[in-house]
């Protein structure tokens, strides 16, 4: 490899979609050819401000543009939220391993997602749906704080519910008047009866506390720890396994992850901190 690892590709933000009061999706068009595998992440630079890691939420099949869903959580993301269409940004990557989709073929894919964790899951979901017949079924168990906090509302509450081969249940911690789905944390919609335990893989992505309890629940159901895939959020900076910020034990999340099986990392006491 003979290129500068730290040089971003120039991109333009062509659209910004409000998803929730604190979450926006940025449509980013790279000026050079750029592709990724679902579950890989990119480093997005806001020039002069900073850089942060995000997993694209769009399907890798769309090679013209990429969607990145961003929650306001710190200095860089607060300023990103103030950006307008036409903003120039930079992208480095894609980095990491992504989801091993081919290993999911023929199996039930049991996805548990929460909050802005639905961003990487949307990319995975779209990838799975593209070849839905390859999988036994796709089970989605998604949660958010309130109905307003769900991202991708238009598709989530509409077309995604009707895809053949997809079994979707939603829950919120706190409902409002129109809410017709479950109320309670995401583990309250995880049901052993829905799991084809001999032929299933679990995918968990969301806030650390949710990941912790969802993983525990899947283990209780009898999931083998090697069949639970976790998309880990750590402080990835260089993206290429050098700068050290994202280490979990011996692993560089940026290079060896961000998708790990629970088996790989369960020995480390701090993975959900």
């Amino acid at each position, binding site marked *: *490899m*003979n*290129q*500068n*690892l*730290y*040089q*971003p590709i*120039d991109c333009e933000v062509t659209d910004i979609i409000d998803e929730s009061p604190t979450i926006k999706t940025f449509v980013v068009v790279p000026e050079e050819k750029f592709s990724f595998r679902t579950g890989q992440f990119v480093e997005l*630079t*806001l*020039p*002069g*401000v*900073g*850089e*942060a890691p995000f997993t694209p939420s769009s399907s890798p099949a769309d090679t013209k543009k990429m969607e990145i869903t961003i929650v306001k*959580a*710190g*200095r*860089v*993301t607060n300023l990103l939220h103030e950006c307008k269409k036409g903003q*120039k940004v*930079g992208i480095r990557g894609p980095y990491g391993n992504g989801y091993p989709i081919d290993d999911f073929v023929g199996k039930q894919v049991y996805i548990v997602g929460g909050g802005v964790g639905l961003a990487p899951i949307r990319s995975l979901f779209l990838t799975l749906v593209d070849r839905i017949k390859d999988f036994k079924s796709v089970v989605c168990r998604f949660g958010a704080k309130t109905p307003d906090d769900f991202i991708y509302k238009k598709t989530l509450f509409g077309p995604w519910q009707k895809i053949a081969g997809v079994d979707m249940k939603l829950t919120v911690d706190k409902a409002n008047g129109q809410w017709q789905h479950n109320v309670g944390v995401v583990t309250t919609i995880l049901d052993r009866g829905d799991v084809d335990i001999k032929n299933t893989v679990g995918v968990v992505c969301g*806030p*650390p506390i949710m990941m912790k309890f969802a993983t525990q629940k899947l283990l209780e159901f009898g999931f083998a720890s090697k069949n639970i895939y976790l998309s880990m*959020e*750590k*402080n990835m*900076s*260089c993206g*290429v*396994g*050098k*700068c*050290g*910020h*994202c*280490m*979990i*034990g*011996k692993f560089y999340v940026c290079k060896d992850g961000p998708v790990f099986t629970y088996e790989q990392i369960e*020995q480390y006491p*701090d*993975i959900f*901190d």
Partner: protein
Amino acid sequence: METVFINELKPFLDAVAEQMALFVPKKSGEHYVYIKYDHSSEKVVEFNNIRACTPLKEFLFPLCELAAVFPEPVEPEEIKPFAVFGLKDCDLRSIEILDKVFLEDEFEDLFYVARREKMFIISSDCFEPRESCCCNLFGGQSYAEKSFDLNLAKVKNGFVIEAGSDKGEEFLQQHKDIFVEAPAEALAERDSTRARTQQQLEENNAEYKLDAPVNEIMENSPDSDVFDIESQKCVECQACTRVCPTCHCFYLYDTKQKDYFAKMKMWDSCMRLAYAEVAGGANPRKMLGDRIKHRLMHKFSYFFDRYGIDMCVGCGRCIDADSHKMDIRVVLKKLNEELKNKPKAKVAK
């Protein structure tokens, strides 16, 4: 490879400096630091009997450098050949470690590679190890046998110079006129000094010898209290990671210049509280003891797992730098003793 002899340092250093920028050690207090060699200066360059306090990484991976420019891409600045004189075996072994990360990895760091290719390495034998020197505990010794272009050994009436690479050999050929054949007694003196220094290192560190390989000790101590106990002495100054020749954590940050945006790359330290913190505030290593443990696990277990060598050369700089004298040898020895009393420790990496 060829071995020659010279009475004085100056003609040799002048010959090097004619070809490239040369950095030489200079005494500063009780330590050596590197300065640029000035051939016109009357001051005699001292032969450093021990490693400088400046880690070699400064030459290959500077404290702060420009990593990218936005929107125009930046090519690495053209690095001209340069030489560093007075490096010790521990310094050379630190290059081996940094190479694994920045040069031999599937992702090459162009800035590092450019400097690495242009560096002319002039090492020299160490013969006055400090109390903190402990290379012998970590697979090193007082003199280099590989990884240098030229190596000097100080003897009674001059210096024995040995070539260790084609570049070094070529240099000796080019400057035949300033060297003479190495006398047998000079070579004998060099060898006896080497043996004596090695013996001294062994004696200095006898009490710190471990009963098992260091990675085994670390991997079997995940629940030890030693890290928390040691952390009570630490003032989080991060000096240990700055002076460490193998610590290579860095931090990328963006700045706004007059007419462009720049991405800078600067040394960072895993001892810093916010080092691993994510935007939402989660931090896997909030406790100082956990950060100390992580640093040592990285050095003696994680790095070994990935690259097959330990990430410590036993140079002792961290021991010298620590204001409360936290001593890596003492920490490892304590873990060693703990394990001896707890033979059925669980294995976890």
